[in-house]
């Protein structure tokens, strides 16, 4: 019986890469890659808000712009903000609001640009992690880093960090393909349900839980625990990257 499509174990993450402070003009920036999904984050602020009527009396306004590059997916994505991008901008904003000390900057704005350069599933999760790094790079006061990771039920298996192939899994279609039949043996019958998560380690809580599909209620707990495990691994990795940057400043 072969393992997952890309050879990983059920609870194994794809390869992670992170860089901080790569855009000199932004107040804070980061590049985050998980597998083939790559997201660039840029943070501007806290800064003066125009137009003034959007200002909030007692806190900073958080503006999140999640967008996918036209070349980030195999079929060119039209440049205008799609409904999906508008929704993801909103859910990511809500997740980030839970970690930023927005009350320290009343009437100001913090602009967060999340640009997906290459999409292979898990883009909103990678975007949240990238945003977290960029916010820290910008010196925006935060409670902790927030880490995005996706879990899912592919066929009958619960796995961590799905790639696009797993997200599109459909056992009925695969059975008709000679080369792909073996994967049906591994994953089992059914389609794929993905569950993007965002986890804040210091609070031991999720700031984002979404689900696209169907899962029996008694499996939810197992999926969340798997998500938390994956998130903590990403958390340790990104902290290592940030710390290394400051410890290795050459003179």
């Amino acid at each position, binding site marked *: 019986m072969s393992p997952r499509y890309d050879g990983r174990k059920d609870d194994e993450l794809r390869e992670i890469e992170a860089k901080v402070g790569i855009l000199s003009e932004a*107040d804070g920036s980061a590049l985050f890659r998980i597998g083939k999904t790559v997201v660039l984050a840029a943070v501007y602020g806290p800064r*003066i*808000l125009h137009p003034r009527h959007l200002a909030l009396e007692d806190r900073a306004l958080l503006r999140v712009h999640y967008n996918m590059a036209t070349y980030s997916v195999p079929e060119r994505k039209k440049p205008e903000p799609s409904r999906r991008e508008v929704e993801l901008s909103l859910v990511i904003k809500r997740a980030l609001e839970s970690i930023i000390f927005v009350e320290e*900057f009343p009437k100001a704005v913090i602009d967060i640009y999340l640009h997906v350069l290459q999409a292979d599933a898990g883009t909103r999760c990678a975007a949240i992690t990238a945003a977290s790094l960029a916010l820290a790079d*910008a*010196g925006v*006061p935060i409670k*902790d880093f927030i880490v995005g990771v996706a879990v899912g039920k592919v066929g009958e298996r619960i796995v961590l960090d799905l790639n696009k192939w797993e997200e599109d899994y459909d056992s009925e279609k695969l059975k008709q393909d000679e080369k792909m039949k073996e994967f049906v043996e591994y994953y089992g019958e059914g389609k794929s349900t993905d569950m993007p998560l965002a986890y804040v380690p*210091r609070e031991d809580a999720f700031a984002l839980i979404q689900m696209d599909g169907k899962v029996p209620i008694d499996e939810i707990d197992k999926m969340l625990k798997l998500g938390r495990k994956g998130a903590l691994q990403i958390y340790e990795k990104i902290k290592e990257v940030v710390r290394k940057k*400051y410890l290795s400043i050459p003179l």
Partner: protein
Amino acid sequence: MGKVYFENKSIVLPGELVAEGKDLEITGSFYKVDDKVYPKCISLLEIKGPNKIKITPLTGKTYIPRVGDLVIGIVQEVTLSGWLIDIRSCYLANLPLREALNEFVDVFTSDLSKYYDYGDVVACKIINVPKSKLIQVSVKGENLGKLVGGRIIEISPSKVPRVIGKGGSMVQLIKQITGAKILVGQNGRIWIKHPDPEVVCLVAQAIYLIDKASHISGLTEKVKNFLEEGMKNLMKK
């Protein structure tokens, strides 16, 4: 009694449990949950004594205004009753007429831009930070007013104390070795003036060095060597 979980001069990250306990004296940027202390930004932890710690942010380009600070601003708007100044904060600062001039000015007939115009660089002092209105500044005082000539560079406001040094030691060192005029704004804007533009560049490089490596020890010595080398090379030309 308190417990500190990191060594002196460690880099600490937001959300990391840095210290815990009652009777801890903590300065800098942090937040507490019960008796547990966490940094809000990527910071340098310094243990100043038993139960005394300081958490200094290493990042951040936005200046948080404090009354009494000397800042270097750039005039953004000329209004009927004064000027609006960008001080690198998330709020504009207001320089009212009475804090700029001693003479009587008829606002309906005179053009205020002849005193300070758009783009002018001004050294000013913060006199009020009200909750919801504009920050109030003044140019009445020593070393304040329009800065003419020279060059402005920008660093993170959190690094300004390092550029100034204990009792002004770092900035005095730079002035001594190079002979340049330097004015350091608490908002991270620094004005450098010297007749030789290459000396201005050298001073700027030294300050960027401090900005990048503020958490490394032995910095004063490194800056001294860097400047002395630089001045020697300039003298040779």
